[in-house]
């Protein structure tokens, strides 16, 4: 059987589930997975919070896929720098883009660039030891932080900012983050969203986890939990179970504070604010506070938008973390929808000028935008691979050089390819470093450190 060569760009969950589906097909497939960093696993390594070790166990599945026959890892290779998509198409029958949505949406308000105003992604990358965020600085001498956004990344940020460091130190959190968080003076975290408790995008599990942190209080204004008719319609939809659970949780917060199980002294408080649109971040050089326009909801259930009441609210703070959506990165030779921050596609076939771009596919957040959780990517990648395989009829007439051709191009560019065995060395070394501290691993946080492991 003629071998079909497929390149996957990106090594996060969506990339691995695409590889899995390809390697399970009836065809003879070679998969070449290309990753910018020397380390695989994308957001499972650098996004999933260190205190969620169980979720990180999906790496066991990816590790199995990496070691499968027909699978090759090309780490430390940057598409558009070390190799073009055009060259990938010359050497492969198909290219699947699986690069996620690493950029963050901006608030687009005055003061956004003041010192102390950060993207939540930068904080998450920093505490997870992602090399690109290694040198971020956060001023934890501040007493008050505002987190903008009511999704799970916002919840992660709140949890890592508020959890006692003693509960993080046995996790795989980066050592530099642990040291900085141990000195944190933060006492109040305000979590702000434009719409109401029914529209909040938290998974109920994440919200409950915040309420369960031992040394904090979770607060809401009880009036905010009085909901209108259209919200009740939203809650009555059986598909909308999470919103109902979230509302129940928000309503339970006041009683939690007086529960006898709570220790009497709480170090920190997390307050949830609703119906507030960011207006301005105040300060001369550093963040001093933030003002918001108050809203009410208008329109029909499931498409309720915000209408300003004309009133404003001001919250003094020294830190702002925005977590209001994420965007993909554009690549040369591939169309990009700048409004949506993703690659235009139909069921994973990349669409250019209304037509499928031959041989180019997309999956994961780069395909559907930043929604869903790890498992959502499996169904998504299966859909993409079904389309790709359907397009492969007759490709035997055009043999491709696959991994040999790819290696030759990269060698010519003097790229140091980090292959599977190299990654396994880095992996072993990280686990050994972690042992000293009783952690599952101590990640290398600079690319040079990772490559140094391979030179000995």
């Amino acid at each position, binding site marked *: 059987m003629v071998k079909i060569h497929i390149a996957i760009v990106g090594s996060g969950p969506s990339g691995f589930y695409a590889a899995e589906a390809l390697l399970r097909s009836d065809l003879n497939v070679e998969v070449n997975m290309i990753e910018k960093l020397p380390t695989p696993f994308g957001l499972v390594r650098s996004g999933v919070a260190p205190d969620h070790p169980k979720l990180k*166990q999906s790496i066991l*599945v990816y590790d199995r896929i990496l070691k499968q026959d027909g699978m090759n890892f090309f780490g430390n290779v940057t598409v558009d720098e070390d190799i073009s998509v055009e060259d990938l198409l010359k050497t492969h029958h198909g290219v699947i883009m699986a690069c996620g949505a690493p950029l963050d949406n901006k608030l687009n308000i005055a003061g956004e660039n003041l010192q102390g105003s950060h993207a939540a992604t930068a904080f998450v990358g920093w505490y997870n030891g992602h090399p690109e965020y290694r040198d971020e600085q956060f001023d934890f001498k501040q007493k008050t932080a505002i987190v903008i956004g009511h999704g799970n990344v916002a919840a992660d940020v709140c949890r890592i900012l508020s959890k006692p460091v003693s509960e993080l130190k046995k996790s795989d959190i980066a050592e530099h983050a642990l040291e900085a968080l141990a000195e944190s003076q933060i006492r109040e975290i305000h979590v702000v969203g434009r719409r109401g408790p029914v529209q909040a995008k938290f998974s109920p*599990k994440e919200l409950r986890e915040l309420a369960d942190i031992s040394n904090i209080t979770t607060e809401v204004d009880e009036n905010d939990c009085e909901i209108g008719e259209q919200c009740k319609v939203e809650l009555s939809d059986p598909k909308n179970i*999470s919103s109902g659970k979230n509302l129940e949780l928000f309503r339970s917060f006041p009683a939690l504070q007086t529960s006898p199980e709570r220790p009497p002294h709480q170090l920190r408080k997390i307050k949830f604010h609703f119906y507030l649109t960011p207006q301005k971040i105040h300060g001369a050089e550093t963040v001093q506070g933030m003002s918001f326009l108050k809203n009410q909801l208008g329109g029909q259930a499931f498409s309720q938008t915000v209408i300003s009441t004309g009133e404003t609210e001001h919250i003094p703070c020294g830190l702002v973390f925005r977590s209001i959506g994420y965007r993909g990165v554009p690549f040369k030779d591939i169309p990009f929808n700048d409004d949506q921050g993703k690659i235009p596609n139909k069921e994973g076939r990349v669409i250019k000028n209304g037509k499928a771009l031959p041989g180019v596919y997309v999956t994961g957040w780069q395909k559907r935008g930043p929604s869903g959780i790890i498992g959502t990517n499996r*169904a998504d990648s299966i859909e993409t691979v079904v389309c790709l395989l359907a397009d492969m009829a007759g490709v035997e007439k055009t043999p491709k050089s696959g991994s040999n051709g790819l290696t030759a191009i990269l060698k010519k560019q003097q790229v140091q390819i980090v292959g599977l065995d190299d990654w396994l060395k880095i992996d072993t070394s990280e686990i050994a470093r972690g042992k000293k501290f009783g952690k599952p691993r101590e990640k290398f946080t600079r690319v040079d450190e990772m490559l140094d492991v391979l030179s000995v």
Partner: protein
Amino acid sequence: MPHIVTENCQSCRFTDCVSHCPVECFHEDDERLYINPDVCVDCGACIPACPVQAIYDVVDMPEDKDPWIKVNAERSKTLPVIMSKQEPLSTAEARRTELGL
């Protein structure tokens, strides 16, 4: 705490959960599916994927469904893993209607 397949998973076998599971923790017999609690990573992606709302996080599960915890743990040990989504049973749509979903 693991996720649990409960009584709504009966006479349908939509099996959408299987495509959404990142770790292949579903096991099958002819009637229904079961989650292996030792493999499940608690991501919750299967919950909204199930057309008959059969799957719960234990924390949110009504108490009368508690016996299903044991059923899932025990049955998943002996039954085969289901690796990909399959055609639903012919009774599947009737089942969904019966449940009002």
